[in-house]
């Protein structure tokens, strides 16, 4: 199991995000209805899309782990969830700020989109205690994968349920025939979405590289000290053999 830190990807991420935010403020027109406050859309929506897709990616990786038994998929699934939870925090905070500006409230409890995202976020917050409550690393990885698959399946179901709900306060930008966005807005949004997806991937790879280095240092230390348990390896299941990522 060896992952390298992605320098080119990191540079591309910074470039795309800076371009996206520059387009947001200097290229995309102000929304006719909401005005300047709609600029939060170019940050909040890409973050939400990446977080939700990240949860589903984690589910796919968990399936691969259960099928192959290769611990590298478990580590990838864990890291995908971890980064998506961080994105989830950003979604909730930026969403609250937007809600306060648009609706005068920080959170609307009878709005299906907001509450469903909060439920998904809280569901994934329980992943950590579940994972670390199990000491045996193989069992830990297996249970965590089952959780990731179950919760991952819940994400699209939740999305469909919200779309079918009748009360819609939350704007449905992509529900109208022409997308509800002008060409300039759509272009800006796509650049922001691309930048955010690249950021997600970069953070995932950096996290994987750190975990991989920790695990290798732990193995090296154990080898040098004659297999004495030192406990300095990664807290998540390290690869018992070189998986060759």
């Amino acid at each position: 199991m060896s992952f390298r830190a992605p320098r080119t990807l990191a540079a591309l991420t910074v470039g795309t995000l800076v371009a996206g935010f520059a387009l947001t403020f200097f290229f995309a027109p102000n929304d006719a209805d909401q005005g300047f406050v709609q600029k939060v859309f170019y940050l909040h929506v890409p973050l939400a899309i990446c977080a939700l897709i990240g949860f589903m990616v984690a589910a796919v990786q968990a399936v691969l782990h259960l099928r192959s038994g290769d611990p590298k998929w478990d580590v990838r699934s864990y890291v995908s969830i971890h980064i998506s939870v961080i994105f989830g925090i950003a979604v909730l905070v930026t969403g609250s700020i937007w809600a306060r500006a648009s609706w005068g409230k920080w959170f609307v409890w009878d709005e299906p989109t907001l509450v469903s995202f909060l439920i998904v976020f809280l569901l994934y917050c329980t992943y950590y205690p579940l994972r670390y409550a199990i000491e045996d690393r193989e069992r830990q990885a297996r249970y965590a994968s089952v959780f990731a698959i179950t919760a991952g399946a819940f994400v699209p179901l939740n999305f469909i349920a919200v779309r079918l709900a009748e009360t819609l306060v939350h704007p449905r930008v992509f529900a109208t025939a022409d997308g509800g966005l002008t060409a300039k807005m759509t272009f800006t949004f796509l650049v922001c979405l691309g930048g955010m997806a690249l950021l997600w991937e970069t953070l995932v790879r950096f996290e994987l590289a750190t975990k991989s280095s920790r695990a290798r240092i732990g193995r090296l230390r154990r080898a040098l000290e004659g297999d004495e348990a030192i406990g300095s390896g990664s807290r998540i299941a390290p690869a018992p053999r070189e998986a060759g990522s």
Partner: protein
Amino acid sequence: MPALPLDEAGKYVAGAYLVFLALLLVYVAIMSARLARLDRELAELGELAGNVVERERSTREEAFRG
């Protein structure tokens, strides 16, 4: 709901983008702390490897003399 005036809306928009930036900075700070720890562990390993090499050399020398 009518659009907020720019001076009012600007605060919220700036707030949202600053929160995002702050989260990124916190993450980078955590990553750098982890990197520093890995660096320390690597230095310890270097010392450990040096000790092992030294011990093996002295064992070999003793065996050669004996």
